[in-house]
Structure formats: structure tokens, C-alpha cells
């Protein structure tokens, strides 16, 4: 358990809860209750039931034969793209809304970048009949119009964040401000393994169903629960946290996180936090953060709206600094090519976020016997515009 959060809310030197006093009661309420709620039989039953019958879990573990042939290894795709709403994000929103209900909250807020977490939140709020407000950068609202409309159809109010660069970081700021102003009746569903403790641990637990299923499915398929590699993309890091979770203590499983290099880590347009960031504090936790020498947060860039966050979750910062997870990155070009390749070889158009994970297959020295699991975190429907603009297919 040496990679899990400690009782102070830290992963090694990363984590904590750096929040203004106005949020202390809310975060403290969560901190003191989340484990007992999540581990209660009644919660587990409702959570598991919704994951099975509403989300469509377990998601398949698909042996991608043509991709395997190309990269000379046995490559499985964990099909999170087949979850209801099209990505892994809903695993977490189901968990958090059940938790919010048990804490007696009536209203839900969330931030969203590409809109996947916003849609997943709007969806569970509709399901549970709860009022929902999603903050989204004004620029992202223009770039991701279909997801804005999906949220509105689901009855959610989408509020544009008009501060800063009007993207995910600013939407998160606005959601936190809203929470400061509405501390008693509102639960904030954070979409990634970021934010003050206990959010990173809570979100990782809800997403850990991914690696639990991989273990079960591999055992059924091969008789061995352990793959040689698990590969997942990392923006804030929720799908990676879920895909790695039950393998963290099995050190013989190579865990690979893939960040968005944007136009290249040597350009000023990148989102590769482990390559470019240093220790800092944003949105309530101490982690690796892309920032100037003066400690001002730098706006990251990636073609993928789900990966352009200036930090990573504290758990990932710890996994990076201990060397437990190897962090690689893929440029816009590499990710787009990988997305097209997966479409052609397997008939699966991946989300551009997930295409980053596929893109590093060619960077690994794989052998025929290696069993590789790529976490396909989302589907590409939302990215059609970007694929079309890209044009090289």
C-alpha cells in the first residue's frame, strides 16, 4: 500500500488540502465520511448495480489482433469508450453522486474541459433528479458545442467561465468559487484525481473498477491476472489512476502514463507536466505544476481538450517521482496518427486523449510474449471535428 494516500492526505510529499478556510467544513465533511460511506454494503450495492445496469460494466477487454500483429505483442484494449456517455468519467460521477446523496446535498456543481466530465455529471444528475451546474471555459464551450448541448438536453445549466484563458483551469476556479459561495447544500463533483484531499483518493477509488476488471478478465483469458504493461493517458490522471490502481503494488507490471506533448515538449505549446512542471500548489493540492519562475500557472496546450491541464494529480506526481510509473508523452501528430491507425486496424475511433496512449506502443520495446493493456478511456465521437480538421486520413 505504499503508493496509496496516507492518513494526512499525502502521497509522499504530494497532496494535502490547501483550501481557504471557507471550504474547510465541506472538505472536512467529505474527509471524515467518504471511506465509511464508500465501504458500506448499501453504497457498494447501489454503486455496483448502477455500474452494471446503467453504465454497462464490465466493459470488454478486447484482444486487438491486428494491432498486436503490428506491434509484435499481445495487445488488449480496455474498452472504457463503451461506457454510457462514451468515457470512463461516469464511473466517478456515479460514485460521487451517491456519496452526495448520503451527505444530504441537494445541488451538484462540476467543472469540465472537453465536456466529457460535464456530460457524465449532467447524466447522473438527471438520473437522480438533482440540480446541476457545470462550469466550462467560454473557449471550450465554443470548441465543444455538441457536449454543451448534451448537458443542456440533460437539464444542466452550463455556465461559461470567462476568467483567465477561459479553459479547464478557469472552469475549475469558477467551480471552486461557486462552492465557496454555496457551502452547505452543494457537492462539488471534481472530475479527475486532482483537488484537495480526499478528492484524489476518492476519485481513484471510484475509477479503480477499471483495473479490478482488467485483473479478472485477464485471469479468465490467460490464467494470469498480471499484464506486462498497462498504458493510459494522463491529463489530471483519472483514467490512469483507475487502470493502475490494483497493479500499483505488483511492481513487475510496467505502468506507463502518457502525457500530451502538444507541439513538442521543447515548444511553448505542451501539456507534459512531468517533463515541464515543478512542485507547486493549485486547486487545493501540492503536486507537479506547469508554472513560471514566479509561481504563476502556465496555460498548457494540447490538441486534446481533455489533456490540457497544467498539473497532474498528486498520486501521479508521487508515482512519477518514485519511478513506479514511467511517464512518456505523445505529440499532437503522434496521437492523431495513432487515432487513425486504431480506426483502420480495429474499427475503433478513439477519443484523442486515448489516442495518446495508443501512440506510445511504437516507443516501447515489446516482445511477442508481452501482454499489454491499453486503457481506451473514451470514444472519438466528440472529436470528429478535430479529426476532420486534421484531415490526414
Amino acid at each position: 500500500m505504499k503508493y496509496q494516500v496516507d492518513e494526512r492526505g499525502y502521497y509522499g510529499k504530494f497532496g494535502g488540502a490547501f483550501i481557504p478556510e471557507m471550504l474547510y467544513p465541506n472538505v472536512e465533511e467529505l474527509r471524515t465520511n467518504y471511506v465509511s460511506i464508500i465501504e458500506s454494503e448499501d453504497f457498494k450495492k447501489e454503486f455496483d448495480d448502477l455500474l452494471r445496469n446503467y453504465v454497462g460494466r464490465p466493459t470488454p477487454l478486447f484482444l486487438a489482433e491486428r494491432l498486436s500483429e503490428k506491434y509484435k505483442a499481445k495487445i488488449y484494449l480496455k474498452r472504457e469508450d463503451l461506457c454510457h456517455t462514451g468515457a470512463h468519467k461516469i464511473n466517478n460521477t456515479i460514485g460521487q453522486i451517491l456519496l452526495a446523496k448520503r451527505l444530504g446535498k441537494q445541488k451538484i456543481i462540476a467543472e469540465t474541459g472537453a465536456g466529457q466530465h460535464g456530460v457524465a455529471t449532467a447524466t447522473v444528475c438527471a438520473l437522480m433528479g438533482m440540480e446541476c451546474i457545470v462550469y466550462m471555459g467560454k473557449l471550450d464551450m465554443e470548441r465543444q458545442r455538441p457536449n454543451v448541448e448534451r448537458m443542456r438536453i440533460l437539464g444542466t445549466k452550463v455556465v461559461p467561465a470567462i476568467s483567465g484563458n477561459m479553459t479547464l483551469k478557469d472552469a475549475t476556479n469558477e467551480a471552486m468559487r461557486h462552492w465557496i459561495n454555496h457551502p452547505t447544500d452543494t457537492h462539488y463533483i471534481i472530475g479527475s484525481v486532482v483537488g484537495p484531499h480526499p478528492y484524489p483518493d476518492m476519485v481513484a477509488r471510484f475509477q479503480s473498477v477499471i483495473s479490478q476488471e482488467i485483473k479478472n478478465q485477464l485471469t479468465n483469458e490467460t490464467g494470469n491476472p498480471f499484464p506486462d504493461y498497462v498504458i493510459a493517458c494522463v491529463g489530471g490522471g483519472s483514467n490512469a489512476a483507475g487502470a493502475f490502481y490494483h497493479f500499483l503494488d505488483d511492481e513487475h507490471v510496467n505502468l506507463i502514463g502518457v502525457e500530451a506533448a502538444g507541439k513538442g515538449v521543447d515548444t511553448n505549446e505542451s501539456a507534459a507536466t512531468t517533463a515541464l512542471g515543478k512542485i507547486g500548489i493549485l486547486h487545493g493540492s501540492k503536486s507537479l505544476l506547469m508554472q513560471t519562475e514566479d509561481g504563476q500557472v502556465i496555460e498548457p496546450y494540447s490538441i486534446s481538450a481533455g489533456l490540457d491541464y497544467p498539473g497532474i494529480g498528486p498520486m501521479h506526481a508521487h508515482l512519477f517521482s518514485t519511478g513506479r510509473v514511467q511517464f512518456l508523452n505523445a505529440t499532437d501528430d503522434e496521437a492523431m496518427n495513432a487515432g487513425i491507425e486504431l480506426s483502420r486496424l480495429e474499427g475503433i475511433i478513439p477519443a484523442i486523449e486515448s489516442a495518446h496512449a495508443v501512440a506510445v506502443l511504437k516507443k516501447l520495446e515489446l516482445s511477442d510474449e508481452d501482454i499489454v493493456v491499453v486503457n481506451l478511456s473514451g470514444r472519438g465521437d466528440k472529436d470528429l471535428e478535430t479529426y476532420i480538421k486534421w484531415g490526414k486520413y
Partner: protein
Amino acid sequence: MNRITHLFSSKAENILSVFYTAGFPNLSDTISIARELERAGADIIEIGIPFSDPVADGPVIQESNKIALDNGMNLKLLLKQVKEIRQEAKLPIILMGYLNPVLQYGIEKFCSDAAQAGVDGVILPDLPLHEFENEYKSCFEKNGLLNIFLISPTTSESRIREIDAASKGFIYSVSASSTTGAKGSFSEDQVAYFKRLQSLKLKNPQLIGFGISNYESFAIASKYSSGAIIGSAFIQFLKSVSDFKLEMASFINSLRARA
């Protein structure tokens, strides 16, 4: 003696603390605003260290942060400016900001440079009590800097007592569950909170902040505490006048005397 401690030992009521963002509206205004405020009779100045992501602030202070950063303000330059302010200024100077710029500056270096420049206290809203006590307290104490903690209407009594025990100087009492910003008047709930706080008989004096904008709100806050902090309304004043030097005295007077 620390100037904050000295102030509260010599004056128990109607203390006016004024917040403004360093480097706003222009880079060098940090210095002239401080001088004018002292001349106009402010008791404390709180200078904001601009940050790219001020999550506890409303739109007015957010905008001033952005403009200050665009003007080229940073912590290193701010400490130089404070040194210059301190050549003449007698009043307590507090720096207020978010933790990350301080962390990047280096906490040891920050404490020693700030104290040398003439800073008396620091307010870092995203530095919670136990983190302060674990990692920062000794450095603050070594340099004679006071760390000012916040409490709000949702802070439990036991936590208020804990914060009171850990505080020196004064406690920053946030008037409502909200981000910073001028509201005009206080609700009954807020006044009830002020009364409750007053009845706790804390060892530290309190200043009430957030939502102070005029004579009425300053007077009510001062009735239930040692005084008040004005921020967003002062930033708005700076934005609205063509020459703040000419208007400073009347602005400060308008808070202390009914128009």
C-alpha cells in the same frame, strides 16, 4: 514590537485595514497608494501578491490580479517596493496572497526578505492551519512575521478556538460564505454571526472583511469587532478615479463618517 501587535494594543476600535493589489493600476502605484493611505488615516495596509488563479476572489480582485501580472508585478519586485514604502511608512504592512508564488520564492527566503523589507504579517488563505504549523510556523516566528488566519460563518466553534489559540495579531473574520466582493449591506444572518463571534470572547481581536464597502458596512463591522478590512470596493475606487491621490482622503473619510 511587531507593528500589528502594537496597533491593537494601542487602538481597540474602528481599525481600518485597506487591501489593494500590488502593481495595480500601474506597476509603481504600489508605493504611492501606500503613502496616500497612511496620509489619509488608514491603520493597516494589506498588499495583495498577484496570482494567476485567485480562487477565493470575486471578479474585481481577479481583474486587478490579471492587470498587475500583465504590468509585470512579481513577488521579488513587490518586496523591493515594500522596502521603499517602509522608508517612510509607520503603519503595519501585511502581504496577502496565495501560497504558490511564496512557495516558488522559497519559504525561508520569503520570510527573511519580507521581514527585512518591513512586512509585519502575512495572509495566505490557501495555507490551512495544520500545514502552517507543520512546515511554516518556525520560519515565520524566527523572522517576527505574524500569520493571520481566516474564519468564516461556517467555521465551527471548536475550530475557531483552535485558530484563536494559534493566532497572533488578529483574526480575519470573513463576513459571509463567499468570495471577495462588495455587497453593500449585511444580512441579519451576518449580524447574528458577528454577535456570536463577539460572544466567544476570543483572545485575539478580529477584523471583519469581505463585503465592506461604505460607511454603513464599516460601522456595523466595527460595532462587533475591532474594525474592518476593505478590498474590492477600494480596488473599484482606484479604477474609477483619474487621480487617486486627489481623492484618497475623501474616500477614507467617507468610510469613517456618514456622508
